[in-house]
C-alpha cells in the first residue's frame, strides 16, 4: 500500500477566479522512501495540492470531491483536532520563503522546541533541539539556538525549517518550492541535505518545484501539472528523457540548455570598459564594498554575461554604468569617454546610447500611464515630436511581438512576460548602442523565460545591439552570452568566452557555481521545432 494516495482531488476556486477549480481530478501516490516531484508553472495548482495534504488550505478554497489516504485514514474526513495531531509529527512541511517563515520575536530554540512540546515531548527538548540543528549541518548549534531569526541568513533559516519539520521523524515531508528563494549554491546544499536525510530515514518526500533541473537532480518520480490538472506522471528518467505530453515537452524545451556553443571570436572595438570600479557603502562604522576593483570589457556586438549570486555586486555594477549609483573609484569608459565624471547634463547624450531593461515586470512600468506614453516618453524627452514618437512606439510594439492596440492600454492589463516586452520596447525606443538587461527573465515562468530570451537574441542580431546581461542563472548565461564574467562579493573572479569558462573554469568559486547547477548531468532532449511550436503557449 502506498504511503500517501491522493485520489481524484477537486478543489474549487472562489467565484471570480480565472477558472472554476484550483485543481481538478488530481490523483497521485507517494511511496515510502521516494521523492516525488510535482512540477508546474505558477497557477498550475501544485501548491494547492500540497496544502490540501497538510490540511492547510486557505478558507476560501473548498474541497469538492476526492480523498487523501494516509495511514489508513482519509485526511479530508478527519476531525481538525486529529489532523492537528498529525501535522508536525507524522506530516512535515517546509515553505518557499525562509526570510518570513520564522516568528521574529521568538528565539530559534523556542521555535524548534515548540513542535516537540505541542506533541507531548517536552522532556529533554533543549538537548534534542541542539541535536536537530546539528543534523541539518548548521554551524555552532548552541549560538544559533539562542539567536533570533533576523540574525540568520536565508539558507540557515531554511535549515532551521527543515529541522523543525523533521524533528519528530515524520513519514512524509512536503517541500513547497523550498529552494526557489535561495542562491544557487545554497540551493544545492539544501537539496543535498534533503536527499541525505530522506535516504537515512526513508521519509517520503513530496517536492514542489518549477525547475526541471531540480527534478533531474533529486526526483525518483515526477508529476507535471498544468491549469490544475496532472498532465503526465511517471518515473523520473522516463519523463525527463522521453516526455509524452505536449506541455511537458514544451516545459523541457524551455529549460535553458547548459551546453554553451562556441561563439565566434569578436575582435571589434571596445564599446564599454570598466577599470578598477569601486563602490563602498558606509553602514554605521563598518564599510561594505559592494563592488571591489571591478574590471570588465565589452566589445561591440557581443553579449557579456555578468553572473553571480545575491550580494555579489552585479546589479550594483550595472547601476554604476547607467549612473543610478555613483561609483567611488575607477573609470567607466564608454567609447573613450569616462562616464564617471559627467554631470547630469553631460549624461544627456549618453542616455540615448545606453539603456536598461529591469528585473521586475510588475514594478518597472508606471501603473498610471498608458503603454504608448511609457514607450514614447524617452524619445519625447530628447526632442522627438510626439506624433513621431508614438508612431515609432507602434513599430516597436510590433518588433517585440505585441499587438498595436497595447498603446492605449495600461500595464495592469498585461501578463509578466508581456510587460517585459513593453520594457524592452521602452529601452529600444532610444535606439541604444548598449543594452543592459538586469535579470530580465528571473521573475518569469520557465516557458515565458524561453520566449523572452529568444526575443532578446533575435533583437540583438537584427539591431546589432551590444548587451550586458546580468543573471544568477548560469544556464541562462550559457544560452545567450558570448562571454561571461563571474562575480563574488564585489570582485570579478573570472572572465572569458562562455564555452571556455564552462568547460575549464579557473577560479574555485566558478567551479562551485558550475557544480551547483541542479541536474547538471542531465541533457534535456531536443524536439523538432514543429512539435514544440504546435504545443507552445500563446505569446505570454
Amino acid at each position, binding site marked *: 500500500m502506498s504511503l500517501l494516495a491522493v485520489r481524484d482531488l477537486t478543489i474549487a476556486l472562489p467565484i471570480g477566479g480565472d477558472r472554476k477549480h484550483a485543481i481538478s481530478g488530481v490523483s497521485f501516490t507517494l511511496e515510502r522512501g521516494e521523492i516525488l516531484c510535482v512540477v508546474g508553472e505558477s497557477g498550475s495548482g501544485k501548491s494547492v495540492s500540497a496544502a490540501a495534504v497538510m490540511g492547510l488550505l486557505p478558507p476560501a478554497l473548498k474541497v469538492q470531491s476526492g480523498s487523501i489516504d494516509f495511514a489508513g485514514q482519509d485526511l479530508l474526513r478527519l476531525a481538525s483536532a486529529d489532523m492537528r495531531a498529525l501535522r508536525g509529527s507524522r506530516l512535515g512541511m517546509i515553505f518557499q520563503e525562509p526570510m518570513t517563515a520564522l516568528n521574529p520575536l521568538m528565539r530559534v530554540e523556542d521555535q524548534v522546541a515548540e513542535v516537540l512540546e505541542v506533541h507531548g515531548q517536552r522532556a529533554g527538548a533543549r538537548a534534542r533541539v541542539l541535536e536537530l540543528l546539528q543534523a541539518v549541518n548548521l554551524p555552532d548549534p548552541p549560538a544559533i539556538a539562542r539567536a533570533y531569526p533576523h540574525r540568520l541568513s536565508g539558507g540557515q533559516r531554511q535549515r532551521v525549517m527543515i529541522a523543525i519539520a523533521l524533528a519528530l521523524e515524520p513519514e512524509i515531508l512536503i517541500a513547497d518550492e523550498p529552494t526557489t528563494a535561495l542562491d544557487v549554491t545554497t540551493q544545492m546544499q539544501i537539496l543535498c541535505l534533503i536527499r541525505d536525510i530522506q535516504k537515512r530515514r526513508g521519509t517520503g518526500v513530496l517536492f514542489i518545484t518549477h525547475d526541471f533541473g531540480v527534478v533531474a537532480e533529486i526526483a525518483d518520480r515526477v508529476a507535471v501539472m498544468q491549469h490544475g490538472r496532472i498532465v503526465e506522471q511517471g518515473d523520473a528518467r522516463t519523463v525527463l528523457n522521453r516526455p509524452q505530453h505536449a506541455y511537458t515537452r514544451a516545459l523541457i524545451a524551455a529549460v535553458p540548455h547548459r551546453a554553451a556553443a562556441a561563439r565566434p571570436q569578436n575582435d571589434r572595438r571596445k564599446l564599454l570598459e570598466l577599470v578598477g570600479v569601486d563602490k563602498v557603502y558606509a553602514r554605521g562604522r563598518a564599510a561594505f564594498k559592494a563592488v571591489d576593483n571591478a574590471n570588465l570589457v565589452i566589445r561591440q556586438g557581443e553579449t557579456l554575461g555578468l553572473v553571480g549570486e545575491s550580494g555579489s555586486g552585479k546589479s550594483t555594477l550595472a547601476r554604476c554604468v547607467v549612473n*543610478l549609483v555613483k561609483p567611488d573609484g575607477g573609470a567607466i569608459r564608454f567609447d573613450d569617454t569616462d562616464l564617471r565624471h559627467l554631470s547630469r547634463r553631460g549624461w544627456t547624450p549618453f*542616455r540615448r546610447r*545606453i539603456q536598461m531593461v*529591469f528585473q*521586475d515586470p510588475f514594478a*518597472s512600468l*508606471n501603473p*498610471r500611464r498608458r503603454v504608448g506614453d511609457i514607450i514614447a516618453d524617452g524619445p519625447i524627452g530628447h526632442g522627438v515630436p510626439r506624433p513621431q514618437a508614438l508612431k515609432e512606439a507602434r513599430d516597436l510594439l510590433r518588433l517585440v511581438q505585441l499587438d498595436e492596440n497595447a498603446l492605449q492600454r495600461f500595464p495592469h492589463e498585461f501578463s509578466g512576460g508581456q510587460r517585459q516586452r513593453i520594457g524592452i520596447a*521602452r529601452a529600444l525606443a532610444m535606439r541604444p548602442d548598449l543594452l543592459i538587461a538586469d535579470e530580465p527573465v528571473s521573475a518569469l515562468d520557465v516557458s515565458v523565460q524561453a520566449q523572452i530570451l529568444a526575443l532578446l537574441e533575435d533583437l540583438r542580431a537584427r539591431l546589432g545591439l551590444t548587451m550586458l546581461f546580468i543573471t544568477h542563472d548560469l544556464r541562462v548565461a550559457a544560452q545567450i552570452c558570448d562571454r561571461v564574467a563571474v562575480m563574488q562579493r564585489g570582485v570579478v573572479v573570472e572572465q572569458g568566452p562562455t564555452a571556455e569558462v564552462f568547460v575549464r573554469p579557473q577560479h574555485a568559486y566558478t567551479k562551485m557555481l558550475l557544480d551547483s547547477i541542479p541536474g547538471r548531468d542531465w541533457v534535456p532532449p531536443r524536439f523538432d521545432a514543429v512539435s514544440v511550436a504546435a504545443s507552445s503557449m500563446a505569446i505570454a
Partner: protein
Amino acid sequence: MKGFLRAFFRNRGALAGLVILALAFLLALSAPLLFPFSPWDMQGAPFMSPGEMGFLLGSDSLGRDVAAGIAYGAPVSLIIGAVSTAVALVIGVSLGAFAGYAGGAVDDAMMRFTEFFQTIPSFVLAIVLVAIFKPSLASIVIAIAVVSWPPVARVARAEFLSLRNREFVQAAEVLGRSRLVIIFREILPNALSPIIVLASLMVASAILLESALSFLGLGDPNRMSWGFMIGAGRSVIRMAWWMSVFPGLAIFLTVLALNLVGEGLNDALNPRIAHRRAAT
C-alpha cells in the same frame, strides 16, 4: 477610474457618509434661507425645550434658536476643516516629498524637524497659538494646520522614499528625464492614494479640533460654532440638555461621515485589503 468608482459606491458605509456630507453641505448653504435671522439674536423665551414655541431643537439660555445655531455653525466647521486640511497638506506633502526624494542628510534633518513637532502635544500648541494670536477664523485655521501637517509629511515621505527606488522611476532616470518630470509625472500620481485617504481623515480631526477650541472659548467670536454652543450649554446642562446634545450630534455625524468616506476611499484604492475584509 471606473473601477475605483464602482468599488467605492459598493461600500454602503461610504455611501451613507457621502449622503450625510451632502446634507451638511446643503444645510450650510441654505442656513440664511431656513433661518433668515442672525443666530445671535434672541428669538423667544430662554430654555424652551425642543418643540416648544416653534423652536425645533429648543432655545438656549439667551433665547437663541438652537437649530439656527447648528445651521449657521455648519459652514464654519466645514470651511475651517477643509481649509486647514488643505494648508496642512500643502506643507506636509511638500516637506515630506522633498525629504523622501532627496534622501540622505536632507531627509535626516527633515525627519528630526517632524519628530520634534510630533513631540509637542498638538492640542496644547493649538490652544497656545490661538490664545496668543487672538481667536479668529484665520488664526484657528493656521493653528490647526500647524499641528496637523506632521502625519502628512510622514506619509508623503514614506511614499516618496519607497517610490524613488521603484524600477519604473529608475527607468525614467535612465531615460534621462529631468528631476521635475520624474517627481510630478512618475512619483506623485502613485503617491496620491494614501494621501487622499489621509486627507479625508484629517478633515474629520480638524473639525474635532476646531470644536474643542471653540468649546474652550477660543472660537472666532463673530461666528456661531458647534463647539461654542456645547460650551455655552455646559453649565446649564441640568436644565437644558438640548443645548449640548444637538450640536454634539451634529459634530458626531459630520465626523462619522468623513471617516466612513475615508474608509471607503481606502478600500476602493486598495482592493486587496477590501477583499480580505469581506472574506471570513
